[in-house]
């Protein structure tokens, strides 16, 4: 990075002279000049805080937020010894795999549905945009009200349809509230996923299916042998991006249960937020952030390796 800065200064000096004779040398630095604004923004707002996180995670932090020297793995061992931490990790895994996996399966169906002509197709497509466009926090708050024990219409509708005999506390017991929040996660993840898959479906030439029909292939074998392999790229893209988004997701759990009762429905993201800004344990929060950082890194490396292996 320093090298680049030096080069940039040089290039500024060079461009001030008439640049006919030194054109070639200045050409070498020009690309970095074009990258500079973007680099500065990223380094200041993203890379530097990553460095800060690592530094805080190994420091003793006073209540007022001052660094009070190196304490080694202290923050990490505090986090790892917290009896709720394994549960938080398990929740994060269930949350991420559950939301991404089920959304992808449902979206495969929805995308192939929307890939067919029927009256009102445009309207349904437009409706599919809404949960994607609306702020996650607003959609979650609406669901919180809909699922309210006394005042929510969800219990009302299920009672009227005789699906349940008495109202259910959807957001109290973690064994109900966590799956319910996964459901909301799926609701907001489906639009993006479906649109990506739909664009993949539309790129598949129709004559592939026709010639398969001539060969006597049924719907299922057409799906397995033509559709799925050709959807590999959109599916990879949606799965990777969704995994990152869903892992990092905050508003749904924050607004619906706040991770309660006692961390039972926390994922690593809400857990770290509460450590940092409610318990004021910045050191430990930084340690959790570093752990999340490493988990995401491992995931990305896994993904790149798998993607590269498939490529060959």
């Amino acid at each position, binding site marked *: 990075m320093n090298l*680049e800065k030096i080069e940039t200064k040089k290039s500024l000096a060079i461009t001030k002279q008439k640049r006919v004779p030194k054109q070639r040398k200045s050409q070498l630095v*020009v*690309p970095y000049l*074009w*990258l500079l*604004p*973007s*680099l500065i*923004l990223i380094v200041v*707002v*993203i*890379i*530097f805080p*990553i460095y*800060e996180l690592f530094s805080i995670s190994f420091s003793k932090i006073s209540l007022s*937020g001052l660094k009070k020297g190196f304490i080694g793995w202290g923050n990490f061992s505090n986090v790892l010894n917290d009896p709720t931490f394994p549960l938080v990790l398990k929740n994060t895994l269930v949350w991420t795999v559950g939301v991404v996996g089920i959304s992808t399966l449902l979206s495969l169906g*929805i995308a192939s*549905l*929307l*890939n*067919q002509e*029927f*009256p*009102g197709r445009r*309207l*349904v497509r437009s409706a*599919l945009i*809404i949960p*994607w*466009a*609306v*702020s996650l*926090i*607003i*959609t979650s708050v*609406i669901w919180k*009200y*809909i699922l309210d024990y006394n*005042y*929510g*219409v969800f219990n*009302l509708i299920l009672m009227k349809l005789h699906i349940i005999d008495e109202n259910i506390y959807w957001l109290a017991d973690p064994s109900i509230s966590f799956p319910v929040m996964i459901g909301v996660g799926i609701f907001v993840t489906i639009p993006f996923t479906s*649109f*990506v898959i739909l*664009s993949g479906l539309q790129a598949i030439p129709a004559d592939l299916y026709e010639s398969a029909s001539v060969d006597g292939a049924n719907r299922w074998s*057409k799906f397995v042998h033509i559709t799925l392999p050709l959807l590999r*790229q*959109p599916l990879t*893209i949606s799965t*990777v991006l969704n995994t990152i988004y869903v892992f*990092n*997701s905050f508003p749904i759990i924050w607004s619906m249960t706040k991770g309660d009762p006692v961390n039972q429905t926390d994922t690593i*993201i809400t857990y*770290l*937020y509460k450590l*940092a*800004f409610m318990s004021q344990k910045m050191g430990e929060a930084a340690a959790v*952030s570093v752990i999340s*950082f490493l988990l995401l890194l491992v995931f*990305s490396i896994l993904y790149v390796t798998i993607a590269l292996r498939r490529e060959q």
Partner: protein
Amino acid sequence: MQKTGKFQKIINPVLAYLLFVVLIFPYVIMILTSLKSKEEVYSIPPTILPQQWVFTNFLDIWEKVPLSDYLLNTLIVAGGATVLTLICAIPAAYAMARMKFAGKKFYMYLIMITQMFSPIVLLVGLFREIQWFGLMDSVWGLVLTNAAFNQAFAVWILSGYFSTIPYELEQAAWLDGCTKAQALRKIILPLALPGIITTVIFVFIAAWNEFAVALTFISTEEMKPLTVGIYAFFGMYDVQWQYVFATSLVAIVPVVILFLLIEKYLISGLTAGGVKD
């Protein structure tokens, strides 16, 4: 498009309309609730349609909370972040699409890494930095954060668009005496307009909808954006749902319209990053 059987012809639309109902259900409830009276949102059993349509809720919200401030703050954050994102991303995307240089791969990986994180994972580090800059409780801290976290997306989509524009057009402009920057402004940018519009709208919406950073950095009521502002109606003992949802509607309508406008371009933009290289 696949040919469909008779059974499929009937069942498919039915499934699609069912999907439609599920998709709009929460938002219909939101609108209906925003038109109910204070008493009715807490009636047992709950009602679906308002017994009495209280349109004045939409007037009340402007007086109960500093809604015009929320709206203005959201506009500044979304608009500011969009402008800053473009200022930084356009030259970078151009360099990525058109220039050869050492470290190109490095910049690409750097961008990819930034895409892995949400601001929340970095919030502890970011919080201290924003404090040092004196940008706590200011919309400019949010502008900066949103611009940075949308940088990766913007560079991907723009460089994707730039590289589809024939190189010859640019060379012709250089021959006519344009500098690189002039050629970018006069040739590339107009031709890449769909890409730029997509980027603008997408970044604008992302910043408009952002919640976690705003929740953490902003504490003064008058400085809050809409997403955090709706929490003003969450009291100690009860929630004024009719106002929460009336305010939410103000926050939702502009972005849903914007999103519908770019529906066509959205996917090619979003997947461009993954398709390239």
